[in-house]
């Protein structure tokens, strides 16, 4: 079966985001961008399924600005077979992304779509579930283990109290949690090879999907700053502080 892996270009997770002074958003000019960490895990899982012989082809897809090509090339360098870029300079909301991905899924007929559980920029945690709803497929969210057997996939999920395993009929949606795997690094030869792998360029209009945003961001602010704390010199002082806070007798 084919695997479809949506990837998103986001601010690098090591960068501390700065809110613009005019409150319109976060300053992304000249900031290092990378593939969303959960999406790297999704690509890695797809590649492992291909290496096991479960999957035949891995297709990476991204919706975003022209520069999202770099993110797709990273996926290709990791080992994806081909890529699709749906170019949009405007930010596309999870619902719009899910609608576009549903169209791509209808065209490509993958056996599974593997997404990251959330993007570290908007922290929505919606796209995978929305895509599952639009396609009428089962969803295995927050996956820490994925096992395909026949026409079903067993997904072990990270839930609040621990782990839970569900079995889904294929085709299905899986969203990755951090502990699913350790993504590989792209080697230099593979980065070179990735440059010649196919990358199809599309526009949202090609899919006839209305991606008009439903939400308007009125303002973006910095969270309230914590007031400067104090340092205590030794344990006795700390004990006194804890007593003053009423958490120690």
């Amino acid at each position, binding site marked *: 079966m084919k695997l479809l892996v949506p990837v998103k270009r986001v*601010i690098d997770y090591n960068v*501390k*985001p700065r*809110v613009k002074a005019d409150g319109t958003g976060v300053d992304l000019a000249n900031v290092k961008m990378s593939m969303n960490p959960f999406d790297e895990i999704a690509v890695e899982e797809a590649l492992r399924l291909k290496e096991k012989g479960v999957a035949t082809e891995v297709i990476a897809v991204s919706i975003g600005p022209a520069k999202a090509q770099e993110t797709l090339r990273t996926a290709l360098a990791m080992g994806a077979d081909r890529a699709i870029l749906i170019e949009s300079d405007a930010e596309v*909301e999870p*619902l719009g992304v899910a609608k576009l991905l549903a169209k791509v899924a209808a065209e490509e007929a993958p056996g599974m779509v593997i997404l990251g*559980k*959330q993007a*570290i*920029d*908007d*922290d*929505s*945690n919606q796209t*995978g*579930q*929305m*895509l*599952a*709803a639009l396609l009428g497929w*089962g969803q295995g*969210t*927050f996956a820490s283990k994925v096992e395909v057997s026949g026409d079903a996939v*067993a997904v072990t999920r*990270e*839930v*609040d*109290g*621990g*782990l*839970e*395993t*569900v*079995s*889904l*009929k294929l085709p*299905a949606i899986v969203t990755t949690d*951090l*502990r699913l795997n350790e993504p590989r690094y792209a080697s230099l030869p593979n980065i070179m090879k990735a440059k010649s792998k196919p990358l199809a360029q599309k526009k949202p209009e090609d899919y006839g999907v209305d991606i008009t*945003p*439903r*939400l*308007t*961001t*009125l*303002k*973006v*602010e910095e*969270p309230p700053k*914590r007031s400067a*704390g*104090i*340092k*205590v010199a*030794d*344990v006795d002082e*700390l004990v006194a502080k804890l007593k003053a*806070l009423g*958490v*120690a007798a």
Partner: protein
Amino acid sequence: MKTLVWVEHEGGALKDATLSAVTAAAKLGEVHLIVAGSGVAGVAQEAAKIAGVGKVHVADDAAFDHALAENVAPLIVDLMGHHDAFVAPSTSNGKNIAPRVAALLDVMQLSDILSVESADTFTRPTYAGNAIATVKTSDAKRVITVRGTAFEKAEATGGAGSIEAVSSTGDKGLSSFVGAEIAKLERPELTSAKVIVSGGRALKDGATFESTIFPLADKLGAAVGASRAAVDAGYVPNDYQVGQTGKIVAPEVYVAVGISGAIQHLAGMKDSKTIIAINKDEDAPIFQVADIGLVGDLFKIVPELTEKL
């Protein structure tokens, strides 16, 4: 505006996360609840007692056990015919179900809201809590998940809601529950604890984590948390993880032991009332958010602290 709140329950008991969601929903208007699962009459009765609750819808069917999103979402979509908003706590169930409901209703979801500014305007954290966005929706119906620590819990008693059975939308046959491994906790639950003691990579290994962090937590009656580094290194199970990708907590007192304070960790705990940091690196970022800091070797400090409490 009529809101429908997802009732989170486990083992026949209502979970606290529901109470915060009820508080958020009440800011939008009339609060109705949905209790789904088999043998949930007791949970429904408990839910009807929550202060301010009107109707409690009960869907009694094994198809709704384990809150499988494929089965639960159509049930909620049915009820949304006569509700204006669906509100769920940002628990793993809430996060799993709500977006599926939103897409079926063709609306955008508002994730993990921190406040209700008006019926269509909300605040929510983005970029690991480094930016707070005020967002207005143009959708006719709202689908919302609520950050529990941002809202007071509604009173669990004093309400007199009416209980009404709703017909099941059945098993969609897309998914089935296989099993669960639930971590045993002898201590308070992380997300509702008043005091939390968290350990990081500096704890070295699982045995050291236990022998250092657990006694201090027990002295303080605290829940135990961990940084991602400690979880990835296998010191403790992953449901101990506090952070952007783990649990979001806001206790009265958060004690960070051997945690450097990466932004992903801070995203999960920086709304704690008082933060105490113990770290040997005086330049560790954790000290920028800590109210009380102690620089030194945790292997000396923590046992001494435990001893003196």
